[in-house]
C-alpha cells in the first residue's frame, strides 16, 4: 500500500519500531499535527458547528450576543453530552449493576467526579450526614463513634490513585472479543484525588489490641456491604476519604465517607462507611467467598486477591473509532496503572507485538495511579494491530492474554489484566481482536494458535 502521509512530518523520520511507531520525543516537536479520530458509525452531527459564519461578519453567533449568567454548579458543554457513563443495570433489580467510565472519551489522568465508575449492589443510599456515624469496635481498647463534622476537623491527607473493580475487563475472558468501546469494556476503573483521614490515625485513637489482624468494614447502603480487610493495609496507606477531586464525595462514590485502599480491588474500598470491626479472622462474607474470588482451572479459587496487577489500555485510537484522515500521522495515547506502585514504562507495538517502542509518560507518574502515555504513529494504510504493554516499578509486566489464560484458565472472572489488541483495517476502522486473528490480519507469526 502506498504511503501518503497527511502528516507534516519529515518522511521516515523517527521510526523506532515496526509499522510506523515513531520516537516519542517527536511529541515535543513543534508543528506536529495528528490525524483526527471519528466514531463509526459517525455520531451526532460532529463537525457541523465548525464555521457558522454569517455573510459579511467574521463574528460567530456567540460573539454577537451576551453569554449566559453564572451558575452555582457547572455542567459540561451541551456539545459533550455523549461523554457519559454507560450503565448496565440488572434486568429486574435496576439499582444493582455497574456503570462504566468512558475512558476512550477522556484525556489526562483524573476522572471527572460525574464520570467515576459505579458498582452498587442495592442502589445509592441518600445519606444525611447529620444522621451518620462511623463506629470502630472489636479488638480495640475503646470503641469509638465519629460524627461527620468531627472527622472533617482531622488533619487530612490526599492520595491520587485509581480504584478498579475486581471484575473490570472481565469480557476479556470470553472466547469472542468484546465489541464494546474501550471504556465500556475496561472502564470499571477511575482515578481521583481522594482526601480524608488516614485510617491509621483513627485506629491508633481506638487503640489496636494484640491479636487484631483483620478489620470487617461495612457500608450504610441497603446491601449493608461488608468485607474483611487485613489490618496492616489500613495502617499502611488507607484513607477514610471525605473528598473526591476537591469536593465532598459524590453519593455514588460513598458520601459522606468511604474507604480508599490504594491499589486494591474496588470491592474492599467500601463506600458509605459506617462500621469497622477489628477481629482476629476474616468474617467470610458473601463478597469475599461466593464473589470476588478467582476460580482456577483446578477448581480451587483464590480468595483475598486484593492487589490489582499492572495493566494498560490504548484509549485512542480504540475500538469503534476510525482514522478519519486516512494514512498519516496519529497520536496513540492511553492509560497504565498498577496496584503495586508506579508505572515504569509503557511500550507500544503497531505490528501485533513483533516490535515495541517506549511511549512518553506524562509527569508526574504517581504510585498506584493512572499514568497517561502518548506516542506518535504513522499509519501506512495497511492493516495493523496496536498493543500497549505496561511494566511497573516492581518489574511486573502486563501479560499477553494467552499467558494470563494459561495461568488462570478462563473462569476466574476477576483480575483480568491481559494486553489489549486494537486492530486497524485498510479503511482505518478500529476493532478488537485476539491474537490468532491479529496474526492472520497482519501476517505476523501466531505464537500459539491453539491456546484458546
Amino acid at each position, binding site marked *: 500500500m502506498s504511503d501518503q502521509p497527511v502528516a507534516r512530518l519529515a518522511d521516515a523520520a523517527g521510526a523506532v519500531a515496526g509499522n510506523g511507531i515513531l520516537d516519542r520525543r517527536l511529541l515535543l516537536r513543534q508543528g506536529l499535527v495528528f490525524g483526527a479520530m471519528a466514531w463509526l458509525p459517525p455520531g451526532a452531527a460532529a463537525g457541523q458547528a465548525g464555521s457558522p459564519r454569517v455573510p459579511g461578519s467574521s463574528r460567530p453567533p456567540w460573539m454577537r450576543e451576551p453569554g449566559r449568567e453564572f451558575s452555582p454548579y457547572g455542567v459540561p458543554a451541551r456539545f459533550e453530552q455523549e461523554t457519559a457513563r454507560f450503565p448496565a443495570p*440488572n434486568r429486574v433489580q435496576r439499582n444493582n449493576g455497574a456503570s462504566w467510565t468512558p475512558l476512550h472519551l477522556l484525556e489526562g489522568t483524573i476522572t471527572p467526579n460525574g464520570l467515576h465508575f459505579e458498582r452498587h449492589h442495592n442502589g445509592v443510599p441518600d445519606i444525611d450526614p447529620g444522621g451518620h456515624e462511623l463506629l470502630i*469496635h472489636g479488638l480495640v481498647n475503646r470503641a469509638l463513634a465519629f460524627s461527620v463534622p468531627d472527622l472533617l476537623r482531622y488533619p487530612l491527607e490526599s492520595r491520587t490513585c485509581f480504584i478498579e473493580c475486581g471484575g473490570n475487563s472481565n469480557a476479556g475472558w470470553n472466547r469472542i472479543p468484546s465489541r464494546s468501546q474501550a471504556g465500556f469494556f475496561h472502564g470499571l476503573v477511575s482515578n481521583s484525588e481522594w482526601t480524608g483521614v488516614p485510617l*491509621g490515625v483513627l485506629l491508633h485513637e481506638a487503640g489496636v489490641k494484640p491479636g487484631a489482624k483483620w478489620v470487617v468494614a461495612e457500608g450504610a447502603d441497603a446491601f449493608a456491604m461488608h468485607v474483611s480487610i487485613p489490618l496492616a493495609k489500613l495502617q499502611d496507606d488507607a484513607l477514610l476519604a471525605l473528598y473526591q477531586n476537591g469536593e465532598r464525595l459524590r453519593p455514588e462514590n460513598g458520601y459522606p465517607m468511604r474507604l480508599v485502599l490504594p491499589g486494591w480491588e474496588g470491592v474492599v474500598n467500601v463506600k458509605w462507611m459506617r462500621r469497622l470491626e477489628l477481629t482476629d479472622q476474616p*468474617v467470610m462474607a*458473601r463478597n469475599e467467598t*461466593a464473589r470476588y474470588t478467582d476460580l482456577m482451572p483446578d477448581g480451587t479459587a483464590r480468595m483475598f486477591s486484593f492487589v490489582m496487577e499492572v495493566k494498560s489500555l490504548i484509549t485512542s485510537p480504540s475500538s469503534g473509532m476510525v482514522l478519519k484522515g486516512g494514512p498519516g500521522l496519529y497520536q496513540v495515547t492511553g492509560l497504565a496503572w498498577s496496584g503495586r506502585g508506579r508505572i515504569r514504562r509503557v511500550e507500544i507495538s503497531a505490528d501485533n507485538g513483533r516490535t515495541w517502542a517506549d511511549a512518553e509518560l506524562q509527569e508526574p507518574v504517581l504510585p498506584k495511579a493512572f499514568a497517561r502515555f502518548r506516542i506518535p504513529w504513522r499509519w501506512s494504510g495497511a492493516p495493523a494491530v496496536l498493543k500497549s504493554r505496561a511494566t511497573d516499578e516492581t518489574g511486573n509486566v502486563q501479560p499477553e492474554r494467552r499467558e494470563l489464560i494459561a495461568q488462570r484458565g478462563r473462569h476466574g472472572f476477576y483480575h483480568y489484566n491481559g494486553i489489549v489488541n486494537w486492530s486497524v483495517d485498510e479503511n482505518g476502522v478500529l476493532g478488537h481482536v485476539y491474537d490468532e486473528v491479529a496474526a492472520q490480519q497482519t501476517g505476523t507469526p501466531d505464537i500459539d494458535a491453539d491456546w484458546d
Partner: protein
Amino acid sequence: MMKLRRSRPALLILTLIGTSAIAGEAPEGPDLGQAAGARMIADWDTDIMPDGAGLPEGRGTARDGAALYRTHCISCHGEGGLGDSGDQLAGARMSLTGEWPEKTIGTFWPWATTLFDFIRRAKPPQSPGSLSNDEVYALTAYLLSLNGIVGADEEMNAEMLPRVKMPNRDGFIDAWAREKAATRR
C-alpha cells in the same frame, strides 16, 4: 506508622488548639471520637463469623423456608433456585472444573454461616432487614436443602448452622497469605 510520623506537625497544632497536649503518651490525633456503648455496638454489629459467633436465637427448617422463598425470592431466583434475573442458588450440573462451571451455594460457598449473614443483611432487596431471625434461619435451611446439604426437616439454629460442613469448604486458596509469605522470604 510512618504515615503518623509524617503528619505529626499538623496533628500537634490541632491537638494544642482542640484538647490539652500531653507530651509523649498523648493521643496522636485530635481524638474526637465519642465512646461507643455496648448497646450501640450490639445493635450495629450483625456479623456472623464462620464459627457461628454472632448467630442470634431462633430456628427454622427447609419446610418453613419453602413458603418464604415463594413469597420473597422466587421472582428473581427462580423455581428451585435455578436462577433468573438473580443468581443461580442451587441445581448446579457442571462442576467447578467443567467447561461452564456453575458456582452455587452447593458447589462453591465455603461457609453456611455466610448464608445466614447475607440473607439477613441484604434480602429481600426491596426491604432488607425486614425478615425475622426465624425466617432467615428457615430460608437458610431451605437453600441448603435445595443444594442437598441438609434435610427438609433439619432445624437450623445457632448451634446447628455452624456445624454444617459445606462441600467446597476446602476449595479456597488464601492469596493474601501467600503474598505475605512471598514478601517475607
